[in-house]
């Protein structure tokens, strides 16, 4: 039986556990059916270790619930970043890391053979030459080391880009790093820079911040590379609440990120069904970059065309959907309502009808996507028409159900 470690080799499995603990919070042990009970116990213990202060427990009739409980507007740094700081490694990895950096900190540059000898002399440690060569190659990729050839010999030296130098020379950079490290998309990289510079975020707070997105950032480098190089990707994904994995070959175009719903999607073309669609980033398990897509530009134009009528993420809709028309009623002192509509509306026009009444016209491919926003005006909607009958009827049914739910007129 292998012993427990708080470090992990594979981010995918952990990602899904952290996500479930954070988003749902009501799941109990038996809900994690994807893996064995032992896996659940190990993953839970790791999450408890990484995020100790943010873990809360409660007991329901179904069992003990574990929840990552964070108000993202009240924290200085995204605690979920800790999951990224848990990569496992071997004893040779860490020894070589500090040995190589220590020797190169003294020397201008060294060949592989010189480095091999220096490690032996300074630390009395013998490593396979090939092991050192691979580590140097890896560190060239990571930007820790640079290599240059002199004749047939390659010489290695430390990168001259030091964290303290950057932070001191470029005035304002520490605060910029503090701020952007809590922004969506790769904030984890900024946080790693902050930790390296030994600074913390003591000024900035983020509102409406979906910190869970950081878990999806692990997928983004491959997706963005495929977009830039106009390549196919093979994606493994599962549905909400399902453990069944689907594999699809996609042409990626863009990441659609909703700041209101917290959902992020990959906008793409599904090569099997030949349609423009979206896939929830949180449901993607893995991404593999494939060969160049010959008709990428054509498909991207098709995507842009879909986007022009897309309210949020619904792409493939009939073109003959009628605009949704609402008359919004306001009181004379409620000038903030039309202001709010103008600030928040999209694919829409607002026309003042007089007497505090406004005609809001939403012209999008899928009116159903606009309905959550429309419902924020409950109490002010004088009439609603157009769109699709099913959408209008559902709204009217909703109001009748809510009227019953909130006890008729007696409560007002």
């Amino acid at each position: 039986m292998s012993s427990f470690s708080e470090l992990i080799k594979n981010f995918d499995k952990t990602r899904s556990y952290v996500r479930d603990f954070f988003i749902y919070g009501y799941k109990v042990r038996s809900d994690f059916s994807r893996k064995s009970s032992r896996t659940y116990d190990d993953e839970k213990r790791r999450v408890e270790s990484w995020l100790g202060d943010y873990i809360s427990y409660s007991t329901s009739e179904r069992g003990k619930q574990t929840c990552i409980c964070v108000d993202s507007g009240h924290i200085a740094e995204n605690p979920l970043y800790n999951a990224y700081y848990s990569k496992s490694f071997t004893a040779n990895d860490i020894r070589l890391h500090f040995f190589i950096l220590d020797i190169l900190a003294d020397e201008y540059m060294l060949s592989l053979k010189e480095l091999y000898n220096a490690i032996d002399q300074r630390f009395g440690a013998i490593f396979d030459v090939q092991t050192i060569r691979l580590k140097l190659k890896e560190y060239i990729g990571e930007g820790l080391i640079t290599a240059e050839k002199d004749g047939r010999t390659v010489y290695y030296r430390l990168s001259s880009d030091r964290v303290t130098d950057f932070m001191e020379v470029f005035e304002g950079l520490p605060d910029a790093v503090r701020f952007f490290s809590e922004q969506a998309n790769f904030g984890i990289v900024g946080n790693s820079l902050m930790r390296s510079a030994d600074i913390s975020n003591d000024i900035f707070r983020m509102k409406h911040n979906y910190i869970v997105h950081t878990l999806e950032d692990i997928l983004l480098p491959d997706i963005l590379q495929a977009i830039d190089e106009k390549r196919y990707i093979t994606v493994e994904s599962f549905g909400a609440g399902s453990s069944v994995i689907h594999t699809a070959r996609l042409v990626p175009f863009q990441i659609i990120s909703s700041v209101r719903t917290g959902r992020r999607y990959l906008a793409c073309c599904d090569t099997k069904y030949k349609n423009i669609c979206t896939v929830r980033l949180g449901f993607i398990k893995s991404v593999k970059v494939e060969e160049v897509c010959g008709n990428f530009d054509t498909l991207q134009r098709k995507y842009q065309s879909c986007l022009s009528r897309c309210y949020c993420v619904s792409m493939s809709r009939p073109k003959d959907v009628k605009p949704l028309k609402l008359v919004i009623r306001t009181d004379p002192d409620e000038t903030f309502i039309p202001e709010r509509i103008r600030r928040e509306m999209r694919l829409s026009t607002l026309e003042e009808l007089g007497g505090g009444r406004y005609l809001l016209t939403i012209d999008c491919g899928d009116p159903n996507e606009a309905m959550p926003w429309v419902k924020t005006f409950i109490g002010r909607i004088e009439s609603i028409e157009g769109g699709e009958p099913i959408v209008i009827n559902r709204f009217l049914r909703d109001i009748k159900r809510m009227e019953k739910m909130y006890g008729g007129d007696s409560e007002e």
Partner: protein
Amino acid sequence: MNIFSEIYGAYYRIVARILEERSVTPARMNELIRKYGFRDSVLFLPPKIDPRSGENWGLLRSEGGVFKAVTKNPPPKIVTALQKRWLKAILADPKIRLFMDDDTIARLEKRLEGVQSLFRSEHFYIPDRYSDGDKYDSESYRSVFRTILTAAREKNMVEVTYRSRKGAVKRLILLPVKIEYSHKDDKFRLYAVQRRQGRLKEGCILNIGRIISAENTGITEDITVPLDNLRSFRRCDEPVEVHIAAERNAMERFLMEFASYEKQTELDDDGSGCTVRLWYDRPDEAEMLIRLLSYGAALEILSPPSLRHAAAARVHRQYRLLSSGGKNF
């Protein structure tokens, strides 16, 4: 080049700290592990570092009761290729000019010449960000922002001229404490302590976009004001409790949308829905109400009574509006 790499990991960072100190006692080693590690790292890491342990990594040697680094130099802290790509990406964000002047940006761009940006704004599409975000390209906005940021750093009082929502212009003397950014509004807000009649008194929140001018008075107030103190009087007295029905994917949608709040959830025994308790800040109550209403009949506000009554009033008004319209209700 990988985000998930041990070179950024907690264990490497702890070891680097210890090697930086050159010599540590076992107690100091454990202290550093507790400070920079995970909660349980102190259970797993010491045997790997302690040179007396049979499974140690050989990075320290034991000498007279202390552990000494076998390395000669403090581990160099290098800006990695990934971090440089990230810096290059944030340089393209208009908000970078809130922190750095044009000359500094140009020098950093030069330093990062040839580095490929980690991402570009075109990679992302945000369909629903509000359209009246702060004006980061305005020199006066940037000047106000920098004055406030500098004052917050130096704990200096600032004198600001502020235009309220209703158009009234006020002069205030404040101690800036925190700066909040809303991803949805694309706006910054200042949390500050206001001086009245010569004394630091109450907390206030100002939209930075509404501040017309700001001047650093140079007067230092060496006090620490935890943000939570400023916000605690704004925290809701009791959480909002809602029930979400398992229909139209409402549960999943709700839990994702409100993931940024502190919450407690419980699934119904029969799986027909779940009950959620959310803690929110009182100034956000109106926003909370309309966001909850956006779930229609799939969500019922159970408490507090004030929020439930506010929702009920809007629903009744809506019901009457549609009833009086007649034709399809």
